């Protein structure tokens, strides 16, 4: 193979003859300065292409773009008659060559070739003639179907030839992929599965949380309603009582309420009454209770203030002066402070004394 022949795939597609080559080069020079419309159109096309790009389609998209460009270049040059590139196709020679090299009169088992039948013209199933190349999933499915059909036909053929098809379970031999590699594949599969499972669980958990919140809200609402009902009841009872006039007859009935909610039975304005008495005596859930800030606020108040005036807290009072709690006589006498050495620590004996002790 000569150098010239090696180079054909670069050049010959643009134009076979050298004259055509030149013309294309000439055309290329002014090309960037061509009209806007054309370039804009190309840009638009590009946008579409880029949207479609995925790993395997990138090249086809680029090829399309390149084809378009080549066509446009050819269309743009009507002043010189456009030469159509002729592509060689020597069918009869190829047929003859095939005839020559074909393996004739061989039983099927020697070659194991299965050629799919052409799909019926009106079939709606996925087939290779109609499949969209850029749709990865359907394309691969078409390949899969083709291979599966071949596998089934092949299996039948193999078995009819009297040759074992699948290996027995106790037949161990070297595989194409090593055990280590298969381990890696298995690990990855497992990881994927656990990831999916985890995602699903998290989703469920999220749903539950959402649902739980709703339940809680409903419960709170219910409680509020109950409380309201209760209060209404009390109100209505009070109304009844005040309508009765003196109320001496029904006082006995309400004593319980009085104990619980602490309002003055006799007064018409029960709100005012409740307030007057203050929170100190207010029962649980009573209306007369002084409104308390929420728990968090309370803690913060306790910590940072809002507990009354701080002025003079550290001053002595008569109580604090009379308090002798922390006083201890012993302490006062011991130590270096004023007191004698009576209660002090035992002193270390002198050196000679210690040595005498040792002996």
């Amino acid at each position: 193979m000569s150098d010239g022949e090696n180079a054909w795939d670069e050049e010959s597609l643009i134009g076979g003859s050298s004259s055509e080559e030149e013309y294309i080069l000439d055309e290329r020079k002014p090309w960037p300065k061509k009209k806007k419309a054309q370039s804009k159109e190309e840009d638009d096309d590009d946008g579409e292409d880029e949207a479609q790009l995925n790993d395997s389609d990138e090249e086809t998209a680029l090829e399309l773009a390149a084809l378009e460009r080549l066509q446009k270049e050819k269309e743009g040059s009507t002043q010189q008659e456009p030469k159509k590139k002729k592509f060689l196709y020597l069918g009869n020679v190829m047929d003859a060559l095939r005839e020559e090299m074909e393996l004739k009169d061989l039983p099927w088992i020697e070659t194991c070739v299965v050629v799919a039948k052409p799909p019926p013209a009106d079939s709606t199933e996925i087939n290779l003639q109609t499949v969209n190349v850029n749709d990865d999933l359907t394309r691969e499915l078409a390949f899969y179907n083709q291979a599966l059909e071949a596998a089934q036909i092949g299996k039948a053929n193999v078995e009819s030839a009297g040759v074992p098809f699948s290996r027995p379970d106790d037949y161990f031999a070297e595989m194409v992929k090593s055990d280590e590699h298969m381990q890696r594949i298995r690990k990855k599969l497992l990881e994927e599965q656990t990831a999916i499972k985890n995602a699903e669980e998290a989703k469920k958990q999220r749903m539950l949380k959402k649902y739980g919140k709703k339940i809680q809200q409903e419960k709170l609402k219910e409680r509020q309603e109950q409380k309201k009902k209760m209060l209404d009841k009390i109100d209505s009872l009070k109304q009844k009582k005040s309508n009765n006039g003196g109320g001496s007859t029904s006082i006995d009935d309400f004593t319980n309420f009085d104990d619980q909610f602490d309002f003055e039975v006799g007064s018409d304005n029960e709100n005012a009454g409740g307030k007057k008495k203050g929170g100190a005596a207010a029962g649980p859930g009573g209306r007369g209770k002084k409104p308390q800030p929420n728990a968090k606020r309370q803690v913060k108040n306790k910590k940072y203030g809002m507990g009354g005036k701080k002025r003079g807290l550290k001053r002595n009072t008569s109580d604090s002066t009379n308090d002798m709690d922390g006083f201890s006589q012993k302490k006062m006498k011991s130590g270096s402070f004023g007191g004698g050495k009576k209660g002090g620590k035992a002193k270390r004996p002198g050196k000679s004394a210690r040595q005498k002790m040792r002996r």
Partner: protein
Amino acid sequence: MATLFKAKSEKLMKDRTMKGEKTSIKGGADESTPKGPKNKQRVLILSSRGVSFRHRHLMNDLEAMLPQSKKDSKLDNKSKLDVLNELAELNNCNNVLYFEARKHEDLYLWMSRAPNGPSVKFHVQNVHTMDELKLTGNCLKGSRPILSFDSSFDESSHLKLLKEMFSQTFGVPKGARRSKPFFDHVLSFSMVDNRIWVRNFQIVEGEEDPENKGKKKTSLVEIGPRFVLNPIRIFEGSFGGPTLYENPHYISPNVIRSAINAKRAQRYGNRVDEQNLHKEKLRNSTLPEDPLDSVFE
């Protein structure tokens, strides 16, 4: 024991002589043997210098799939490919798969029948090797594949020729050395988008169908490698000779790259044009004099 060994060795000798008879120049059929015609193929696999790791892995995968293959060291010479014919002869191979890398990124595959042709040159695209963890299948090393061809391989002359070449190169002959006597994968060739898509599937036989007894449910798992072959030309000779077929749909990757570059260059040109146009516009468009401008002067 001794008699057993004798019997065995006799049988071996007999086999050997039979094989010797079978060997023919064409590697094809020979009716003289009592066992009938036999398919004999040997494939030489090698690459040029400058292949990338992915290309090399693809080549190794193919070698693992073809027990009748012989791998040779990288070929240095890119211009004189007829050396390959001699190499094939040295290795007793009648098929050659030659991976030619260009610019460390483009991979071309030559599939040739040595020494007399024909040969095909493909552009190899979308290579996925067996190493990928997505391809989960596995099969015996050296088991025979069932070759599956798409229906369009029976339609035109060049595809028929390609089918014949594929089936002789990629099919493992019966009883080939190092081959295993079972079938556990399918090698499929499909013509889509004017390219040949190659897939390799493992045949998985599941539990028996409850509906029709005795029949197992067959399913497939992809083993890999997967790649796409874009035929460029078919030559009459092996690695050369007159062209029999040219693919009108083929665009060289160089053209694609240059188109991309041109487009990139065009972006700057467009911008300059735009700026010039804008300047021109500004120059040409002067506001008409407003009669109210001089009212208070």
